[in-house]
């Protein structure tokens, strides 16, 4: 892949220049028409140019991030979501008092005094059918029960835990892998680069879902055997690994590109001329920039991972039951879609809100750390 592939990861989500940080600088740029663009570039590249003492620009970046209200708000929101999912056990034990992983098909609960069947056999008409209890909006079965008579609210929280864990872990994995591959390939160049970037090209041309699905089919049915370690097929590690791996090219390619340009950049050449050892250059000049880019990627990748995880779980090749994730809950909800839509809709909303916040945060981080960075939110 030549042009197309390079540009493909490109298209950026940028903010209007009015929102761009450091008004002042930009306006001078506009004012001084002759060098408008040059100056703007200068300003925007600044974090990179100062690559060899990262703390400085990072401080400014963070302070910039803090000034971005939307980003801060989303961050707070995310924190709230994380906390609430963390409280899953508490809710299950003390409020709903049911095990959300055990079917509860002929249990009863007390709704303000009088008992209620969790799976109520119908008494009207032909007296056919059994309907899970609806949202009580109080304590137990807050959002009602699913087809197994399990407390949806409780499952939602536990599911959230898994979804977030998977998303976070797979993102971390993806970024680390991509960072390493990209840097090595870009910095060493030569045959290593050719091989690595070829490999990336190939994986990149692999439609994400198909790759994920293919991996899942094999791994879910057999588990993964790496030397002495065996990952059982129902372990969270599987979806984490799969999602982590499939997105590597999307991050590794831009990183490689960045490292390539950096390696040719003046300040690196300078330090080469100064006879600085390669390792030192790598650590002092290259890595800080790579890390910046990775930071910029992090939120976007996380939102992608959440979506991917839910999709795989929806196809029942992601998180395996009895464990739940937002995706699996939606899947369970399919059966109840027409009578208890809430079961399917609630986790969906949870996903949307989380991903939305992550994307806002992503925009914020991007503008704060590296406004010129080109990344793309969401992938079909």
């Amino acid at each position: 892949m030549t042009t197309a592939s390079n540009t493909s990861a490109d298209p950026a989500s940028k903010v209007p220049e009015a929102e761009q940080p450091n008004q002042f600088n930009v306006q001078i740029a506009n004012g001084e028409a002759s060098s408008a663009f040059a100056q703007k570039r200068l300003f925007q590249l600044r974090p990179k140019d100062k690559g060899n003492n990262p703390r400085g620009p990072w401080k400014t970046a963070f302070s910039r991030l803090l000034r971005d209200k939307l980003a801060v708000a989303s961050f707070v929101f995310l924190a709230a979501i994380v906390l609430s999912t963390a409280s899953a056990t508490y809710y299950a034990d003390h409020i709903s008092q049911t095990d959300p992983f055990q079917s509860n098909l002929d249990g009863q609960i007390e709704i303000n005094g009088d008992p209620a069947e969790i799976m109520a056999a119908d008494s009207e008409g032909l007296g056919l059918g059994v309907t899970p209890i609806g949202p009580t909006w109080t304590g137990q079965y807050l959002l009602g029960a699913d087809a197994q008579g399990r407390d949806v609210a409780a499952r939602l929280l536990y599911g959230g835990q898994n979804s977030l864990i998977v998303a976070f872990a797979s993102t971390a994995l993806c970024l680390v892998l991509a960072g390493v591959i990209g840097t090595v390939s870009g910095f060493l160049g030569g045959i290593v680069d050719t091989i690595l970037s070829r490999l990336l090209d190939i994986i990149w041309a692999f439609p994400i879902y198909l790759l994920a699905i293919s991996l899942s089919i094999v791994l879910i049915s057999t588990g993964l055997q790496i030397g002495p370690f065996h990952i059982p097929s129902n372990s969270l590690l599987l979806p984490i690994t799969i999602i982590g791996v499939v997105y590597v090219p999307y991050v590794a390619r831009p990183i490689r590109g960045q490292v390539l340009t950096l390696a040719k950049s003046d300040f690196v050449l300078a330090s080469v001329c100064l006879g600085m050892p390669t390792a030192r250059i790598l650590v002092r000049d290259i890595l800080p920039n790579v890390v910046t880019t990775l930071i910029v990627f992090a939120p976007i990748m996380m939102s992608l991972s959440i979506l991917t995880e839910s999709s795989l779980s929806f196809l029942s090749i992601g998180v395996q039951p009895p464990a739940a994730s937002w995706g699996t809950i939606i899947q369970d909800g399919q059966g109840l879609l027409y009578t208890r839509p809430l079961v399917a809709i609630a986790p969906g909303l949870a996903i949307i809100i989380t991903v939305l916040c992550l994307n806002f945060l992503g925009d914020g981080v991007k503008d704060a750390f590296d406004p010129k960075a080109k990344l793309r939110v969401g992938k079909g």
Partner: protein
Amino acid sequence: MSDNILEIRDLTVGFRTEQGPVEILKGVSFDVKAGEIVSVVGESGSGKSMTSLAVMRLITDPNAMISGTIRYKGRNLPGLSAREMRKLRGRQIAMIFQDPMTALTPVHTIGWQIAEQMRVHLGLGAKVARKRSVELLGKMGIPDPERAYDRYPHHLSGGMRQRAMIAMAISCDPAILIADEPTTALDVTVQAQILDLLQDLRREYGSSIILITHDMGVVSTIADRVLVMYSGRIIEHGAKSDLLDKPQHPYTLGLMRSIPPMTGERPRRLPSIPGSPPLPGKRPEGCSFRPRCEFSFSKCSAVPPLYRCNEQFAACFLAEHGSHQWQRNLAEERTAK
């Protein structure tokens, strides 16, 4: 002054910023007569380009604050509606930008871009427009204009692109041509050619030219009149000959000194003005040149008005009582040669 085609009266441009309003231009006033070449000189940041953009009403920034009058043939440009202004731009007042690399749309042929302007303003048909633009390209001294018409900007050298830019600018023969550092991005030989081109234009179309530059060399070659700008103000203006022979303002003097002499042995190194112009917003009280001025004295803490001395104006207290000591020295130096 009926033959003034453009009259600018205390034009002020400022920007709202997080650090409060910042003035880029302060009370700039000058005239342009029909058919003359006025050259605006100054270091970058002095606001000369801002002036031209203001005239063209190309300052799109929502935070811009613009005041003052700009009369073109008696009509006040800031007062015009967007439509009227559009009719004027490119038709009456055209502009050439510094960097021909970025100033042309990369995805259209230069021919198309020239033709576009004529089709919009003169309502020419595709064929005629093409013919005219090919002629223009030819006039601008572009070899094989027929082919050049269908080339893309990135195919052409800087000089050629600048020629194309000029061709575009004059395609609807405007009354005023604003050339913003038309030669800065080009190498010396090409510079000369472009400058000649501009002079021919004046001769042929009799259109007046506002030439914005920081290069005294350029000024000395083609300008009729010179405006010297420093940190948003016009600090001296007058006929070229007067201003170059006996500059009234120390800053102008500095600029003069920085031109390599045409005759005699070259000095080991050219004298230059110490320091650099203040950023807008950080400008000192009083005369903003004071910190760099070798002659600064107590009075300079006030903002100097424009003092008139024959046909020359200078905003410096030294000019208060006519010519000054250093000017005579300069004169002697010259006569000695």
